[in-house]
């Protein structure tokens, strides 16, 4: 006898934040099935894409996913950025490509509530789209250019400071090391160089004195945390600050900014969104939104993001704090 699945979780066994969601779903007695991309070969999985049904067997126990599925928590890859590693053997290449497509195939369960839908995630991961939609919903946006043309900045005076960053997450591998691109504040003459032609990059007006804010939206619920280093505002990319120096006190957003955050998430077709804002010169500037952003580091008893996500997956809305 197969157990009917109400909530399908597509994740990684190293996505520990998903543990928190599963714990909440378990407490609520919800019928859920968590499939981790690393462990899929240990399962017996059969998808009928037309019915549609997904049958899963593990150690003699059976589950069935069908049109009664209520929701999907999508925590696996949407973009494949890991394209630089040529050392993968054939079996690994096969498994990566085919399991990835198999998981995307769960989109046949179109009647379920997706958090977030892969197609929406794909679009929302595109920084240019984010900036455009954020402006449409009323956010202030730093003046931005995405360009590979050093001549485009010829009118900038030498010494003009800019915020320089990649067009997309920059995560590269070389041998046993990885390279990660952070936002860097520097002078335009260090950016508008000949080799800029090799690849486009993002050049923005800098926010030199700013307070970093992380806004997490789940359905109608919203939380905002300041990101401080040793209690102070952080110059440049806060991710370069040692973690033991970071604190995340609550920040109360003006109602109008909250409305813009919710509107942005909705306009991008998302349910969940991790939004980075910067408070500078009395204005809330939109930096970016991450539809697959981490939130476990913000979890606390009085701010249970996990419980709210579990509530959304159960299709019951929980009001925020």
């Amino acid at each position, binding site marked *: 006898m197969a157990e009917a699945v109400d909530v399908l979780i597509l994740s990684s066994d190293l996505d520990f934040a998903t543990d928190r969601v599963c714990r909440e779903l378990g407490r609520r007695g919800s019928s859920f099935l968590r499939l981790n991309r690393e462990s899929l070969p240990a399962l017996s999985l059969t998808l009928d894409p037309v019915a549609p049904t997904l049958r899963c067997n593990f150690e003699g126990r059976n589950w069935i996913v069908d049109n009664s599925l209520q929701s999907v928590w999508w925590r696996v890859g949407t973009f494949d950025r890991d394209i630089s590693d040529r050392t993968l053997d054939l079996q690994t290449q096969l498994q990566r490509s085919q399991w990835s497509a198999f998981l995307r195939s769960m989109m046949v369960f179109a009647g379920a509530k997706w958090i977030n839908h892969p197609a929406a995630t794909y679009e929302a991961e595109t920084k240019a789209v984010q900036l455009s939609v954020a402006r449409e919903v009323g956010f202030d946006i730093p003046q931005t250019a995405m360009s590979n043309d050093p001549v485009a900045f010829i009118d900038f005076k030498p010494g003009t400071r800019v915020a320089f960053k990649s067009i997309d997450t920059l995560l590269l591998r070389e041998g046993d*090391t990885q390279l990660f691109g952070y936002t860097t504040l520097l002078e335009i003459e260090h950016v508008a160089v000949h080799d800029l032609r090799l690849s486009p990059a993002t050049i923005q007006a800098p926010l030199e004195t700013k307070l970093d804010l992380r806004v997490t939206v789940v359905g109608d619920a919203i939380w905002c945390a300041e990101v401080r280093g040793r209690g102070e505002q952080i110059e440049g990319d806060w*991710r370069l600050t040692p973690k033991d120096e970071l604190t995340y006190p609550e920040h109360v957003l003006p109602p109008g900014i909250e409305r813009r955050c919710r509107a942005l998430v909705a306009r991008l077709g998302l349910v969940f969104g991790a939004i980075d804002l910067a408070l500078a010169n009395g204005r809330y500037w939109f930096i970016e939104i991450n539809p697959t952003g*981490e939130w476990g580091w913000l979890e606390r008893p009085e701010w249970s993001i996990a419980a709210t996500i579990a509530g959304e997956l159960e299709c019951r809305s929980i009001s925020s704090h």
Partner: protein
Amino acid sequence: MHPLLALARRTPINERAVRPTEATYDFVSGLWYGKGGPLADNPDELPSTKKFDVETGEDQKGQ
């Protein structure tokens, strides 16, 4: 060299380091268990993120 490459921060890859030690994963409950029960119940034991990029504390952005 492109300025994005010149400015990128280089760190050693150590993916295995993020795996919980002395814990096992239970498929049915979707939870890692340690000696004291689900790691999800003990914030000190459960890493807050995947931390594939050990420096940023963020994930691989949907990877």
